[in-house]
Every structure is written in C-alpha cells, then in structure tokens.
C-alpha cells in the first residue's frame, strides 16, 4: 500500500514502505540532523 509522509518544512514523499523509509531517513538526516528509525518513519506515514 502506498503511503505518504509530510514534514513540517513542506517536504513530502509518497511511496511503498521501503522507499518511504529510505526517503524519510535521508530527509531527516540531511535536512534536520535527525536519526529516524524505520518504525518511526512508518508511524509518521498515512495511507496515500
């Protein structure tokens, strides 16, 4: 199931779990200095 995640900064991403996790982790680390676990990334997501 495709999911969507949005960041307070305006960034958003939609995709399957694996790519969504990777995108969230990269965005968090690169833009906000955050380490996000896979579980946390999925918990942030909503069904697309």
């Amino acid at each position, binding site marked *: 199931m495709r999911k969507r*995640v*949005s*960041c*307070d*900064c*305006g*960034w958003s991403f939609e995709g399957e779990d694996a790519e969504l996790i990777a995108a*969230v982790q990269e*965005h*968090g680390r*690169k*833009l*906000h*200095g*955050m380490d*996000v676990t896979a579980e*946390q990334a999925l*918990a*942030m997501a909503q069904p697309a």
Partner: protein
Amino acid sequence: MTERQLASFTVEGPVQAEIMVLALVAGDVMLTGPCGAAPWYVEVAQGADPMAVAAAIIRANVGEPAVVHSTSWRQARGGVVLTFVAVMDQAAVGGLDRLPVQRAELARGAATAAPAEIAAGPVIEHGLRHLAWLAKDDPAVEGALPAGWLGVLDGYVPEPFRHL
C-alpha cells in the same frame, strides 16, 4: 522522538536550531533555504555544538555561507530554540523558493518574562537587527557580508543577542 509526535515529521529535542537563510536579491532581503521560506529546524544532539551543527548543515544543503550567527533564543517546540541567521550570496540560493522579508514589530515580554507568543516575523526582524549590530561591532562580520548588505542593515535598529 516520542510516540506522541509521530503523527507528522517534526524536529524535536531539548535543543533545536532554527536557521533563517537570508540572501539579498535585487536589493530586497529574501528568506529562503531548503525548506523554502519556512523556518528550517535542525535537531542538535546532546553534546553537539549548535553553531557547528548549523554551519555544517547549511554547507551541506545550501552552500558556503558568508555569515552564520546566533541571534536569539527562546523556549518553544518543547525545548530551547536557538535562532541562527545565515547570510548567503545570491548565487547560492538561486534555485530555492524564497519570499521577501517583511518588517515586523518585535515581540516584547515583561521585565522577567518572555512574550506569550512569538511568530516568525519578529524572530527574523530581531535577527536582522542583531546582524545590524554585528555589522557595526564585529569587523569580521562587516567584512564578510556580501555587497549591498551594509546599506540594507542601516535601516535596522542594532540589537545584541537576546532572549525572545
């Protein structure tokens, strides 16, 4: 990151950097950055130097800043937010979304208390006022500001670093 806040992607932590990326475009001060004209929040890990964190993440995502300076702090977002102003050369921010900075009244608190609420406008206004102060007080900052900035900052009341 706590369970409570997992419904959306948001920066948290006891110390957060709030970076205002500024550039002078056609004589106007623009707020820009990788988050567009939205404030850019960065988590500062325990034991990390907030200034070093801010400078490194600016370099990694935008480019080499002309000036990076902390301008104020406040209690917000569940922790302490340190505001940094990053002055960039116009060429470094050419492809980023941006909005012109509007003048704003500063949020004023009581003698022993912070203002009840602070929007982004007063934070940026104070950041520019502090930059104006630095431009007069710190030769390194004065010399590093890109062309046109000193004239723009003449229009701001110089203020030191402060608690908002």
